Structure formats: structure tokens, C-alpha cells
């Protein structure tokens, strides 16, 4: 609705109506959920009532609300709430740390492939096809089999595998963008290829990969948690939500809250990221 006015009075916007605000409620809920998880994880050292690895042997598998343990304790007597908060730091590191690298690399790969085209493009895209030929988790597991389990190797495995969707996405956008007039103008001015790619094309193709990165972050947290669950990701005594679920599996018949608490935490983060990603994607479609 602002497009019409944009050319004439760039700094005056039409007042936003209630309908516009209402349409954005899911987006704000999403941002709120992510913010809540980020704040809780950042403040973990301040608000966690216990040391997340401290064992209270006399007080194992305590129910929520008993004594000083708000969410109870696990089989080693470790405070579940404290572990949940500290685990959030690891899972957020996966959500943002793994995704930032794959977003950057995949975008640059797609940019170069689409811009140069021809034989370079053909070779680069066969490479992308090849990574796509494997289920993500299988390739991640194969890399972990080579490198060994652990947090660092989990990051390496995700980096190696999950950049490919960005490359395919960005390449498609670049193929369209490079025929636009502003690129021809930049060429006519005799700008170098790197300058045209990064300075002119990149800002015009970056939105779809940014939106996709939200959903990718959900899937990276899922992979990280799945590896923790299989015992191939984060190792003891560090807390990670997927690992907390796996550790509690044998006790879940009697202590159902043990797997439930970290599961709800993953769901909150995942829901927040999905809501933001989905609504940004909808707004893009409406514009396009």
C-alpha cells in the first residue's frame, strides 16, 4: 500500500490500519517466542537456580515443584530447569551458528553459479544435485561417522551438508536478476564482476534466502536435537534439549515431565522461527 506514495513522498507513510496490524499478529507472536528463548538462554547464569551439572544424589527423579526444584530433577539429581536454560544456549548456537554459515556460503555459491552461468554453472550445480541426492540426516551421520561424535563435528557436518538449498534458491533468483536493467547499467559503467555481484545483485536476491533461513534454522535445531538424541551430538555432562529427551527416555513412564520439558522448549523455538519465516514468506508473495 505504500508503493503508490513511495515515488512522490518517500518519507511519508500511510497510517497502518487495524487490519494490517491484525494480519501481523502471528509474526509478532513468532518474534516474541524467539526473543523469550534467547533472553532465557542468555540470562541462564543469572536466573538458573542451580549449577546445571551439579548432582544431588539424595534427590534424584524429584517431581516438579518438590523442594527447591521447580521442574524436578533427572536421574542424577540434576535440576531440570537449570539444565533446560543452559541447554537453550547450545540449541540457539545450533539455530543461529549453523544457519549463519550455511546461509552465507550457500548464497555466495548460488550467486557465483548463477552470475557466470555456462560451464561454471553446470559444474557447480551438479555438485549441488549430488548433495541433494542424499537424505540430509544420512549425510550428516556419515560425516560424523568419519569425524567422530561431538558438538564441533556436528557443526562441521551441518555446514558441509545444509548450504545446498540456499545455492539452488539464490541461483534461480540471480538468473532472473542478471537480465535486469540495473545490472546492464552497472556493466555499461564497466564495474567489475565482484562489485556487480555483491553490490548490485546480492541486495536484490537476498530476501528469499533470508526467509528460508528461518525454516532452515528449525531443521538445524531438529538435526542437532536428533543427533543429541542418538548420542552422537553434544556429549555428557553438557545439556542439550535433544540429549535431555534421550536421557529421560527410560524414565518417561513414571516421570512424563522429563522428556516433556525439553520437547516443549524445542517446540517453542521451532514454532517461533516457523511463524516468522512463514509470515515473511507470505508478505513477500503478496508483494511479488
Amino acid at each position: 500500500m505504500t508503493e503508490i506514495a513511495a515515488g512522490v513522498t518517500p518519507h511519508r507513510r500511510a497510517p497502518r490500519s487495524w487490519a494490517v496490524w491484525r494480519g501481523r499478529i502471528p509474526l509478532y507472536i513468532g518474534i516474541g517466542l524467539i526473543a523469550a528463548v534467547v533472553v532465557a538462554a542468555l540470562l541462564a547464569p543469572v536466573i538458573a537456580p542451580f549449577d546445571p551439572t551439579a548432582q544431588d544424589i539424595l534427590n534424584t527423579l524429584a517431581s516438579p515443584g518438590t523442594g527447591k526444584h521447580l521442574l524436578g530433577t533427572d536421574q542424577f539429581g540434576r535440576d531440570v530447569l537449570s539444565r533446560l536454560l543452559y541447554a537453550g544456549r547450545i540449541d540457539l548456537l545450533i539455530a543461529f551458528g549453523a544457519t549463519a554459515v550455511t546461509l552465507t556460503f550457500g548464497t555466495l555459491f548460488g550467486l557465483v553459479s548463477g552470475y557466470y552461468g555456462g560451464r561454471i554453472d553446470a559444474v557447480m550445480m551438479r555438485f549441488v544435485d549430488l548433495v541433494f541426492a542424499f537424505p540430509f540426516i544420512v549425510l550428516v551421520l556419515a560425516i560424523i561417522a568419519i569425524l567422530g561424535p561431538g558438538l564441533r563435528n556436528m557443526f562441521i557436518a551441518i555446514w558441509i551438508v545444509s548450504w545446498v538449498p540456499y545455492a539452488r534458491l539464490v541461483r534461480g533468483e540471480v538468473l532472473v536478476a542478471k537480465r535486469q536493467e540495473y545490472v546492464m547499467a552497472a556493466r555499461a559503467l564497466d564495474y567489475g564482476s565482484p562489485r556487480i555481484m555483491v553490490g548490485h545483485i546480492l541486495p536484490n536476491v537476498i530476501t528469499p534466502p533470508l526467509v528460508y533461513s528461518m525454516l532452515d534454522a528449525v531443521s538445524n535445531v531438529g538435526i542437532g536435537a536428533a543427533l543429541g538424541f542418538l548420542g552422537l551430538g553434544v556429549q555428557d555432562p553438557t545439556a542439550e534439549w535433544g540429549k535431555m529427551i534421550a536421557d529421560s527416555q527410560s524414565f518417561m513412564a513414571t516421570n512424563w515431565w522429563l522428556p516433556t520439558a525439553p520437547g516443549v522448549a524445542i517446540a517453542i523455538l521451532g514454532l517461533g522461527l516457523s511463524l516468522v519465516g512463514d509470515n515473511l514468506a507470505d508478505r513477500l508473495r503478496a508483494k511479488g
Partner: protein
Amino acid sequence: MERFGFIGGRLLQAIPVVLGVTIVSFFILRLIPGDPVLVMLGTHYTPQRAAQLRANLGLDKAVWEQYYLFMRHLVQGNLGDSVYYRIPVGHLVWQRLPVTLWLAAYSTVIAIVISVPLATLSALRRNRVADQATRTIFLLAFAMPPFWIGLVLILVFSLHWHLLPISGYGSNVPDHLYNLFLPSLTIALGFAAILIRTLRNSILNVLDADYLDTARAKGLSQFRILRRHVLRNALLSGVTVIGVNLSYLIGSTVVIENVFALPGLGQLLASSIFTRDLSVVQGITLVFGLGVVATNLLTDVTYAALDPRVSYD
């Protein structure tokens, strides 16, 4: 005639990817830091077994000769031997494959049974309560990790209500259908989240098409329009979505088999990483890769058979 051209072209296109899959699998054993034979044998190390393994892999030869040897063995159906189980990897894979195939097929069927009616309902009642509820529930299903959904289903249906088994595969078809219901439902919920979203959009697109105005103008009944005109066209995109996300589906089976202790390929893969049985990891990676390439090929061919407008480019 043109149809055969499309299928032929698509087959040709798959050849470099298939070769690439074999190269990636080949390098799994060669990229191990240190001496691969020492790492692979681990506590099973004896000088004879080491020498035998070294000869089998051709580790004293040039890399391209090793790859040639690997391919020659592969063509003969020889995937090497498992260090841990002491039997050929091919046998292990062959034993475990049916479980994974059952799980993948069963969960696809459940996902379709869930998605088609819900996506239709969602599209016809766009932005009303039924639509909002469906979308919210499946957004949650997408945000929750499948292994956790699996545990919650076990908690409710097996431990609380004692309706369904916690684990196991069974020995005949009714047993499979009964035992694999919970794990398949788990995978199907995540898969349906993706399917419903796409199907809903494509039904909405079809609802706007001119030929529906024609159908309505002819006075066809609402049900007939829905079945013959809307769904038939919208489901075409469904075939593609299933194909594109097959690798997600297969990925889910890997984790879910471990939740429900099912003796499939995914469980073998995870346990082989723990036992450092890397020739098994190599074999399973290869089988999964070839499986995805084959199913993608099948999807494209099915799509071409359903839609006469498709041509190869």
C-alpha cells in the same frame, strides 16, 4: 514417442548423479583420519584381518584404481564385509531394507490420508476457523522434532492406554500394519505438515481457474466439480511435493527407527557409528543415495504420465 524421449533424457541426466553418489560413498572410508584399517578394525584387529581388509580395499594402490576396484565389487553386488557382524554388508542391508521400506511406504499413505481431506477443507474454508485450526496444528507438528512426537505418542497410546506396542516389527503383514502404526503416524504428521501447506495452495490456485467457472456454469454438482476438476489437478502438484520431500521422509525413518527400536537401515546406521563399523555406514549411505535418486526419477516419470503437457528440457 515424445514421452520416451522425456524418460530417456531424464535417465541420462541421472547418470552423473549416480556416479557422484558412488564417489561420495567411496570416500567415506578413505577420508578417515589416520590409517582406515586400524580405525575400522579397532578391537577386532588381527594382522590377518588387517592384511585382508587392506587387500580388499586396495589401499596400496592409486586412488583411481581403488575406485575402479570399488565399482567392480559394487557391480557384482559386493559392498564389503561388516567388521562387527562378520558378514557381507550386502546381506545386512538386504535384511534391514524391508523394515525401512515398510515404514516409508506406510507413513506416506497415512500422510496422504491425513492431508488430502484436511487441505481440501482448509482451502474451501479459507481463513475461517477450520482453516486456521488445521494450519496452526500442523505448524506445531512441523516445529516439533519427530522423535519427540514419537515419544509423546508412545507415552499416550502405549504406556497410558496400552493400545499399541512400544516397539517391534512383527512377522506378517497384519502384524506389520499393527506394529508400525505408531512410528508411521509419527513420520506422517511431520510429512503431512509440508503436504497440507502445498496442497492447500495449489487447490486455492485451481479454485481461481477459468475452467471452474465453466464447470459451474454447466451446472455440475459441487461434489463432482471438487472431485473431477479441483482435486485431479491439485493432486498433480501433490506428486511433485511427495517426490521433492522424499529425502526428508527417508531422513525421518532413520531417527524414528531408533525411537521405536525397529530393525531397519536407520537403526543399523546409528549403531554402526557407535561400533565404528564404517563399511556398513558406507553401504547404507550408498543405498540411501541411490534410493533417493531412483525415487526422484520415478516421481518425474509419474508426473509426465499424469500431465501430458510435460516435456523434457
